[in-house]
């Protein structure tokens, strides 16, 4: 359960270093509330994760947290920020705007915005001042985690760790303290068995919000291996380090977040395709399973061209839609199994 030292967040574009430097623990919201519980507040044709986050806040799941940060991930998240601000008993909500581009002016703007965000953590949510020294320390700690996770991803790709184990780690890491997460990561690395899970179709799972292990388990139970987990709490979240020892650490943070592998909310469908093709190639994947929560425009618009790009690169693709709760698991399992049974590289 969140405590007063926790800042809840819903998007991987939240710079965790700043939250850590302010003396808080960043805790990713994984909601057990049903999206439909939010339908009286947010339109039902809104992302189910967004509605589940609202529903959780409405029933005071995160009431003890110091606050919740909503990033301008998409139009829906912007509306969530409004809805949370109107909730009488919810945790204090802070809205963080993120540019849609990654060029120098965007980095400058974002760095400026992050400075003000740090001020909000201090003055509105009771955090410590985010000094350059505190920020540099936080950058170092989060980079340590990123390096460890990179090692985990390498072991996953080599078949030394199962997708289920890595998924569980990533989900816990999104909510653990840095120390506890580091401990779990080290334990998982120590448990790796080279060649242990090799065999079957090698599959990259690429998703936006993926808070349940259903798909990973389906792939493994059908005899496949998950060789990469590219999601909001997976590879995209951990790829790329913040430059340490920079003259302006806030700007270094801004640069890292804007230039790392993009989610669909950023400009650049081509960049997403390149990232996925490269990921498929470096992990020697036979196929990519793309899964999106319903109503996620950032993903749905791109899907045909992303699919085309992967197919042109010789990578089989399966697209699956989920409702965050994975209530259609039976049908999804059938389609996943069929994909894995396709001869050669998993095809459309």
């Amino acid at each position, binding site marked *: 359960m969140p405590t007063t030292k926790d800042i809840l967040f819903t998007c991987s574009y939240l710079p965790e270093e700043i939250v850590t430097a302010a003396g808080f623990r960043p805790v990713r919201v994984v909601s057990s509330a049903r999206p439909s519980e939010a339908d*009286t*507040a*947010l*339109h039902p*044709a*809104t*992302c189910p994760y967004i509605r589940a986050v609202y529903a959780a806040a409405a029933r005071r799941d995160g009431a003890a947290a110091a606050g919740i940060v909503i990033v*301008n991930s*998409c*139009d*829906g998240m*912007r*509306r*969530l*920020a*409004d*809805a949370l*601000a*109107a909730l009488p008993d919810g945790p204090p909500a802070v*809205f963080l*705007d993120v*540019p*849609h*581009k990654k060029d120098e*002016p*965007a980095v*400058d*703007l974002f760095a*400026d*915005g992050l400075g003000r965000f740090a001020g909000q953590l201090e003055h509105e949510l009771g955090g410590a001042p985010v000094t350059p020294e505190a920020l540099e320390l936080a950058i170092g700690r989060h980079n340590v985690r990123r390096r460890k996770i990179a090692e985990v991803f390498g072991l996953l790709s080599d078949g030394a760790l199962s997708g289920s184990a890595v998924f569980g780690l990533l989900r816990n890491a999104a909510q653990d303290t840095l120390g506890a997460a580091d401990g779990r990561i080290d334990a998982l690395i120590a448990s790796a068995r080279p060649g242990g899970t090799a065999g079957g179709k090698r599959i990259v799972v690429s998703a936006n919000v993926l808070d349940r292990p259903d798909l990973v388990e389906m792939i493994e139970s059908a005899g496949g291996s998950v060789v990469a987990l590219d999601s909001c709490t997976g590879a995209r979240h951990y790829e790329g380090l913040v430059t340490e020892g920079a003259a302006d650490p806030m700007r270094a943070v801004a640069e890292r977040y804007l230039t790392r592998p993009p989610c*669909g*909310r950023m*400009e*650049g*469908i*081509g960049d997403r395709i390149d990232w996925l093709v490269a990921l498929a190639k470096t992990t020697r994947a036979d196929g990519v399973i793309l899964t999106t929560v*319903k*109503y996620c*425009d*950032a993903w*749905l*618009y*791109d*899907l*045909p*061209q992303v*699919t085309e790009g992967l197919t042109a690169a010789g990578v089989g693709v399966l*697209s699956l*839609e989920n409702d965050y709760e994975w209530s259609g698991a039976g049908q999804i399992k059938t389609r996943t199994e069929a994909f894995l049974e396709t001869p050669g590289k998993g095809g459309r």
Partner: protein
Amino acid sequence: MLKMMLSEMKRQATEALSVKADARALWFAEWAKLFLAAYDADRPVVYTSFYAFPMEILHSCDVAPFDFELGASMLLTLPVGADLMGQAEALGYSPDICSFHRASVASFYRDYFPKPELLITTSFYCGGKSRTSEILSRLYGKPGRLLSVPQEITTESIRYVSGQLRQIAKTVAELTGKSFDEERLKEAVTSSNRARASHLALLDLLGHRPAPWGGNQLVNYSIFSRMFDGSPVLADLHEAFIDKLKARIEGGTLRQERHRVFWYAWAPTYKNAVFETLTRHGVSVPVCETFLVHWDEIDEQHPFEGLAIRCLKDPFIGGVDRRTALLDKTIDQFGIDGAILFATPACRHSKGNWEIMRQAARKRGIPLLVLDMDIADPRAYGEEQIRTRLEGFIEMLDGRTDVKPVCGGDHEND
């Protein structure tokens, strides 16, 4: 097909104007002329969002602007709409994304649109359109430019947006082989400021009881007229409508009116019973959120900064309070006793906060109807269901004893 439609529109409007001066015919004639210019190969075609991107910049260059979404919306008034949806879905575009954008992509494959040299889009109003612009940019193999507009107005955000506008202006001018002429932009801004004054005068007239204009035509005009921002045409159009409405008011034959409703968001493109039902029951829509003037006069000496501020002040950026404040401001001026939020399913930014909007209206004693209906996909349209919802809402308005109906004549005032 779109070109044929526009040509016919131009022909009919020109013919009507040859008989007598008429604001609506003038509007249609200018609209057709602007769109058709994009089909003539004599100038580079630049795609953009007419109602979001500062058109003053394009009107300062010798290019032919085109808005694929508005072009698609015109096609969607025809029976081809359902086919376009089906084609987009067959290509892998989810039925959960905006029907305008599905139609836009399908229109590319049918070669309905003129070929662009550059595609400019905006991060606001909306995210789906900016993504569609990028998709089309990749399909056409032509460069795209995104105007990314932050959610808050600060010194830094003004600098950021104006910097992007300068870069985009330079890129547009380069298409014509010339440098960008800032003096032409200042003239365009002067035109816009003149049009703004006329716009405010037009809004004043819409406050008359009974309303001399409104409904579907007003909603369409509010969006389609933005294509003339920066052109002298816009003030001329507003003035033409001012003359028309004054004549209607002075004529004393305006339609009987029992209720006056504020309209949020857009209107469906296909044949439907919405405004006919409202009209039949004496419900006027004298004002819509997209016709309100959310910006101050633009600084003519610093046009890029001035245009950046207008973008940053857009009600579809920032919190929902910007939109609820619009209703608040208009209730007294326009005698509003109800509100309708047109909730097309894929428009997350517009309809997401329906409950907050309903509560804000309720605080002012105004009932708000959330009308769930797709903007352009006719396949799910159920006429009787929509009539029933509207009639139920109207009964609710009728049941309010604190509202006095306004009477008038029987003139057709849309």
